[in-house]
């Protein structure tokens, strides 16, 4: 196995009865890469991602995440990945600090480590003043950034982001992507699904799913050349229209 490939997927398929939600997808993701996972609603992105993070059993195919098999080793996968869902998913009725402590706790960090992490995290995000404020009272952008940081609290090898920037203003989106870059520079692999085609340009490589299949996979630059498009939006439209 190539150690640089943190995600390896081969012919991964998920069927719900007769319906094939994910149809034999094959791809690799390298360490430290920002991998954009694109597709229209209902194309099978979320289902594919759920198989990779170990909460949905694939019907057939093969896949390893962080070196662990998605059929047999989901527990080990869970320890090595971070996940941020499209719904904002911190506890509104807990303070910033309590949220960090709680999530640090369920990932099994020691008390000392949690304290350390929580201090640096609050410092970096500039949340010092609101550290003891209920998260529910914070603006969405702050919550989103906090949520991302919390998903990285146990220094996972890979972080899965499911449409992380939905409903966020452009400035916050910009800052959010800076955080993603920072994480990638530190060696974390980022697997991100998104609706925003301009965000696809920020990714190292992009795959585009249509009807359960991966129809295109390459760097944004090469994809634009291949489809003779000015931007990713056009690439996507050309693909989606078939």
């Amino acid at each position, binding site marked *: 196995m190539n150690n640089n490939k943190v995600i390896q997927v081969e012919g991964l398929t998920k069927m719900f009865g007769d319906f094939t939600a994910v149809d034999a997808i094959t791809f690799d993701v390298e360490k430290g890469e920002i991998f954009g996972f694109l597709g229209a609603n209902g194309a099978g992105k979320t289902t594919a991602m759920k198989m990779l993070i170990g909460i949905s059993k694939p019907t057939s195919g093969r896949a390893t995440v962080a070196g662990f098999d998605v059929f047999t080793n989901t527990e080990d996968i*869970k*320890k090595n990945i971070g996940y941020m*869902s499209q719904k*904002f998913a911190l506890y509104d009725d*807990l303070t910033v600090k*309590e949220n960090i402590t709680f999530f640090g*706790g369920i990932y*099994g960090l020691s008390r000392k480590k949690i304290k350390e992490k929580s201090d640096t995290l609050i410092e970096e995000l500039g949340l010092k003043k609101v550290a003891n404020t209920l998260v529910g009272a914070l603006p969405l952008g702050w919550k989103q950034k906090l949520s991302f940081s919390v998903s990285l609290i146990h220094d996972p090898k890979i972080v899965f982001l499911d449409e992380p920037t939905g409903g966020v203003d452009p400035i916050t989106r910009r800052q959010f992507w800076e955080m993603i870059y920072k994480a990638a520079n530190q060696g974390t692999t980022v697997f991100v699904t998104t609706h925003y085609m301009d965000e696809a340009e920020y990714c190292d490589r992009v795959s585009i799913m249509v009807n359960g299949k991966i129809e295109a996979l390459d760097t944004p630059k090469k994809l634009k050349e291949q489809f003779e498009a000015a931007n990713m939006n056009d690439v996507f439209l050309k693909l989606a229209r078939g």
Partner: protein
Amino acid sequence: MKRFIGFIKKEFFHIFRDRRSLFILFGMPIAQILLFGFAITNEINNVDIAILDHSKDATTKEIINKISASKYFTIKQMVVREADIASVFKKGQVKAVLNFEKDFSKNLIKDNKATVQIITDATDPNIANTISNYVNAILQKYQKELNKDITIAYQIIPETRMVYNPELKSVYMFVPGVMTIILMLVSAMMTSISITREKELGTMEILLVSPIKPFQVIIGKVFPYIFLSIINAVVIVMLSIFIFNMPVQGSLFLLGIESVLFIISALALGILISTISETQQTAMMISLMGLMLPVILLSGFIFPISSMPEPLQIISHIIPAKWFIIIIKGIMLKGVGIQFIWKETLILLVMTVFFIGLSVKKYKIRLE
């Protein structure tokens, strides 16, 4: 273990920061017990009645005195004419009118027989019944006093004795029922809501992706409610002992064990509900309709099961609350030990195991 403690801590934050759940948890039990204890009662006290006395002799005076001396009745007015009775009732001033016939005393001496008519306002049949029973009792007692010296052969005097609740206090009947309702509400409804809340907010997904195991999540969510339910049970028993002077005849230890068993069965139901509902509202509706209504209507708490139609009696068997009420009534009022309630306990235990099994299975299916 450390994960678990962190999880439970978080759960308590949720509960204590939400005024609504705090109210349901602690306001409701106290309010219900006090309401049922003081306001909703089958006993009558100081009922207003009117008297129409056609004879106005020594005997009727004595009877009237006895009635007004009892704490049950207050004589509100004297009616003069028969025709006024209807209007007195219509104005709603009194609940009953006693109508003494003419020459009451004379008749009594001459014929050994005199008549007094008890007219009650039966818009509330229970109260009407109780009033007439109470008046009857007072009359009987008076009659006995009169007949003290005369011996009549072959007289059957039924002597009723109410055991276990000699004063017929309705609070005795309500405490076990309210306790059942509260434990059901707190355990089943609150847990199902708190689990579906995590689903609704999307945090459940995050928890499932984390290394914490699904059953740890469930136990972590349920544990605080076991704890709070036990506190509630203790509060209810304390209230009934110290405010309503209702003694607990049997063993408090046994009562505690049985309560924990019932709490666990209710929690399992709560988990079951949370697996089939996607939103907090659905969870609440299912808990209220599916659990609370049967508990109130079919458990024998308010309406006696033996007088229900056959199909409903059969349905009542599958309601855990019914068995729990039998058990705690036995312990609290009759002071029985486990040898008299082992059958009910066993049924409850089997039900609990079944619900736990079912909810575990359902929960697993949902994860697939």
